[in-house]
């Protein structure tokens, strides 16, 4: 749920990076954190990573400047991807305003991507949210592995698996190298702010 403070002309919204475990959600936030200046980013908080797995969530607050006189603050969260942590995912999704789905390009993760997207749809539905209504952007991560000896999915295959019905914006990326990370953030921020202000105007 977004919060608009008219005394400061400021809007706060929550964007969640969702996706299968080890797909690169935390790496997206780490990249953003190290690439941004102190005036934009707040402190990154990572809770209980045990053997580099996110157990609760990562959190990175950003101040993205002004749109039409309104200061935009976006809080980025990641969820733990492992199937068993669904209660935690639901908790982090609470009050979400925009979602980045980070899909893993590794061929062996094909089913995991599909399952995770279905799990997202289900968790949103339990909160009376339709995945089609909420701003959503896909990131096909780990494209840097193309050409290596690790089998990866083609972009077309990933589109077919994940986006044929949704038809949302998507980006190829490598969170490790930073490719597509800012593009993804820019798109989801734009959509989220639009979504929040549209809801605001219709009140």
């Amino acid at each position, binding site marked *: *749920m*977004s*919060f*608009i*403070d*008219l*005394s400061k002309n400021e809007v*706060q919204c*929550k964007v969640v990076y969702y996706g299968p475990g080890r797909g690169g959600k935390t790496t997206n936030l780490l990249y953003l954190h190290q690439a941004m200046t102190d005036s934009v980013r*707040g*402190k990154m*908080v990572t*809770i209980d990573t045990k053997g580099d797995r996110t157990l*609760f*969530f990562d*959190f990175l*607050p950003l101040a993205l400047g002004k749109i039409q006189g309104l200061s935009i603050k976006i*809080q980025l*969260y990641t969820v733990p991807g492992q199937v068993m942590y669904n*209660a935690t995912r639901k*908790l*982090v999704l*609470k*009050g*979400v305003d925009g979602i980045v789905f980070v899909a893993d390009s590794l061929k062996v993760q094909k089913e995991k991507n599909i399952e995770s997207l279905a799990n997202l749809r289900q968790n949103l539905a339990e909160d009376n949210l339709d995945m089609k209504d909420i701003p959503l952007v896909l990131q096909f991560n780990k494209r840097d592995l193309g050409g290596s000896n690790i089998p990866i999915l083609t972009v077309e295959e990933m589109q077919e698996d994940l986006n044929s019905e949704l038809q949302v914006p998507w980006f190829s990326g490598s969170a490790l190298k930073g490719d597509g990370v800012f593009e993804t953030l820019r798109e989801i921020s734009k959509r989220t702010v639009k979504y*929040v202000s549209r*809801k*605001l105007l219709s*009140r």
Partner: protein
Amino acid sequence: MDLVLSKEAIDNIINVLDEDLLRAGADCVLLVDRSGNLIVNRGDPANLDVVALAALSAANFGATAEIAKLIGEDDFALLFHKGKNENIHFTKVGKGFILITLFGKEVSLGLIRLNTAKVTETLIPILGGEQ
């Protein structure tokens, strides 16, 4: 269920927090929503990362609500963590908000409890009722 607060509403909240909690000796008071947004913070949060505190408190409250469900409760109305020098007290405000009070060992927990209960009553209508 997005929240929009006017300058007047924010000023009202600030007044209540200042009058009933800061004057009673609290070091710092935050009002946050349960998705982790920081609504208002008052007091002297020197070296305190209030944005992170808001996000972590919302998550902590959410996790505790799950514990509550496991033992057949709906939710816990308040949480209290005691430190060597600084204590932190969380109170549920309606369904959607949390009031966080930081106070030192010279301030009595009883007084903080009493005043947060009063503040909660005042805040609920400003924040749009019980929902």
